[in-house]
């Protein structure tokens, strides 16, 4: 197990190299550069070509592609992630500023959707065909098919604008206020994100549970004279757990990378919002950093999935 984890961690390094190069190349191939985005088109017509190239030189944009990539990667290896081209703020500051906001929402969504998704899914499966099961199925379908932004906007309309129970958006900076002041800001985005995920987890755990309950070992357990709760949970749910864990694991990277839509709708200052702005402005050091971070999150999530499945399913061997 340990050697497996170490080996997987070692693969992460070359992967990050390759991917950083590809993202850099992608940015290079898009028309325009950071300077052309920084300057208002109206102003641009009045600025001389010399002034433009001076600006480019100041930002190091006049060097060749490979040269720039080399400088960038050497700096990164020394722990210097550079400054945002747009605001001049150190990239590490931006990431460490934005990441907690995103992780906060992700944490709420994961915990809530895992607990409630599994509970509802298992309950649905145990009551298969009942009114509760059918209504939950309909709700689950709606939850999956209604787009996040629509759901988010409706929630805002009802709870923030009409009832005025909760703030419209944004997030108070940590440290400035107590957690109790910040909590109301988290409720709506956290709730909407969690609810969308709960629908998926519920549908998935229902079908995993039904599959598990139809297996032969359930009949064996019954033939042993075990009580129903033990058959359903110790035998049935335990086996249904593996696919559910995989599903939740697959959600991790998107959550850590920031749920762009939710962050936009609720003006949540998370990493996803920042990424969109950076790509639009071709702020390449920032794009690079966030992209690398997301890739890292994906690789870590898949490692976590593998380790967790090996822990819950003895048939899975890690080597």
């Amino acid at each position, binding site marked *: 197990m340990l050697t497996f984890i170490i080996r997987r961690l070692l693969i992460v390094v070359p992967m990050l190299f390759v991917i950083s190069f590809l993202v850099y190349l992608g940015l290079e191939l898009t028309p325009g550069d950071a300077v052309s985005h920084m300057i208002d088109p109206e102003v641009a017509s009045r600025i001389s070509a010399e002034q433009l190239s001076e600006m480019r030189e100041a930002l190091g944009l006049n060097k060749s592609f490979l040269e720039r990539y080399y400088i960038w990667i050497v700096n990164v290896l020394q722990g210097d992630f550079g400054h945002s081209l747009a605001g001049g703020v150190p990239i590490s500051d931006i990431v460490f500023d934005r990441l907690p906001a995103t992780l906060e929402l992700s944490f709420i969504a994961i915990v809530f959707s895992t607990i409630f998704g599994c509970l509802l899914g298992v309950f649905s499966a145990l009551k298969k065909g009942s009114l509760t099961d059918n209504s939950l199925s309909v709700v689950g379908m709606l939850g999956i098919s209604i787009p996040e932004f629509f759901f988010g906007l409706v929630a805002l309309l009802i709870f923030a604008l009409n009832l005025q129970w909760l703030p419209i958006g944004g997030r108070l900076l940590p440290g400035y206020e107590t957690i109790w002041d910040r909590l109301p800001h988290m409720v709506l985005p956290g709730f909407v994100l969690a609810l969308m995920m709960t629908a998926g987890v519920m549908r998935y755990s229902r079908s995993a549970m039904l599959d598990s309950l139809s297996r032969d*070992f359930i009949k*064996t357990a019954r*033939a*042993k*004279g*075990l*009580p*129903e709760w033990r058959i359903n949970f110790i035998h049935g749910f335990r086996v249904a757990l593996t696919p559910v864990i995989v599903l939740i694991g697959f959600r991790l990277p998107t959550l850590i990378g920031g749920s762009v839509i939710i962050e936009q709708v609720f003006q949540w200052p998370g990493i996803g919002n920042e990424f969109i702005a950076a790509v639009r402005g071709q702020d390449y050091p920032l794009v690079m950093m966030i992209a690398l971070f997301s890739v890292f999150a994906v690789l870590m999530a898949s490692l976590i999935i593998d380790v967790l499945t090996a822990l819950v399913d*003895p048939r899975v061997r890690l080597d």
Partner: protein
Amino acid sequence: MTSDIALSVKDLKTYFYTNNRCNKAINGVSFDIRRGKTLCIVGESGCGKSVTASTIMQLLPTLSRIEAGSITYHAERGDIRIDQLARNGAEIRKIRGAEIAMIFQDPMTALNPVYTIGFQIEESLKYHTDLSLKEIKKKAIDLLRDMGIPMPEKRVDEYPHQFSGGMRQRAMIAMAMSCNPKILIADEPTTALDVTIQAQIFKLMDKLKAEHDTAIMLITHDMGVVAELADEVAVMYMGNIVEAGSVDDVLRSPKHPYTRALLDSIPVLGQGKKQAIKAIKGATPDPYERPNGCSFAPRCDFATKECDVMPDEEYISKSHRIMCANYKAVS
């Protein structure tokens, strides 16, 4: 109770209700299982053997129910009408696994893949005995050793996927035998295993029968197995026992045309390729559209008008009974 009957089934009918249609899977079946004896139930696929076993254990799926008849378990504490117990109620749970145990056809899927063999054997013991955890662990190891599994101390902590098919079936038998059941129901326990393993498993079951006086109900479609192991035989066809009796009765002087056809359709080892194997003509009727009379009549060479009504069970000797209007004409 001085009789040696462990369980008696009388006129049992189990119907399945699927898509608003009724499948009379078991349509009036009677038999006794005796202590220290093996009753073999044979018959073609789909004739209701597994359903009979599930009915006795009250393990039927929700879409089916016991329509009529009785299942009486002659326990030491008095007779128990299993058919009248609540499906997964406390009373049937006390009997399952402890007094009536079951072994299933496919040992590959009958064990839970995420728990160790030991855990699964110990589970039964925890629920049905007062032994301490330490004693339970020891008993699980002893059981595996009795079943001929080498290094049981180590094997007990392994998972089903680390066992071969034969070993898994032994583990299943260990599990079934863990609480010394009075009755063991084995539903084609060796169909998924190769022939040498099959012989070992049967030897094991025979030993258990002799040592613990267990009553065994063995479901099979292998006539060789019947000849080897059975004390009594019941031949099933489309939900009825068409012929039943001691092994000698049924194998040496079969009276029902179906039994004869079944025996004729078995190749005999050593007779070479030229022997005439007679497959039974036709196919089993649609279970939803069963004939009104004898269900074998459409495939029977001896069928007459009398076969259009369901024949009664008739005893031709004290132990030998048959359901055929024309059995006298057959011999």
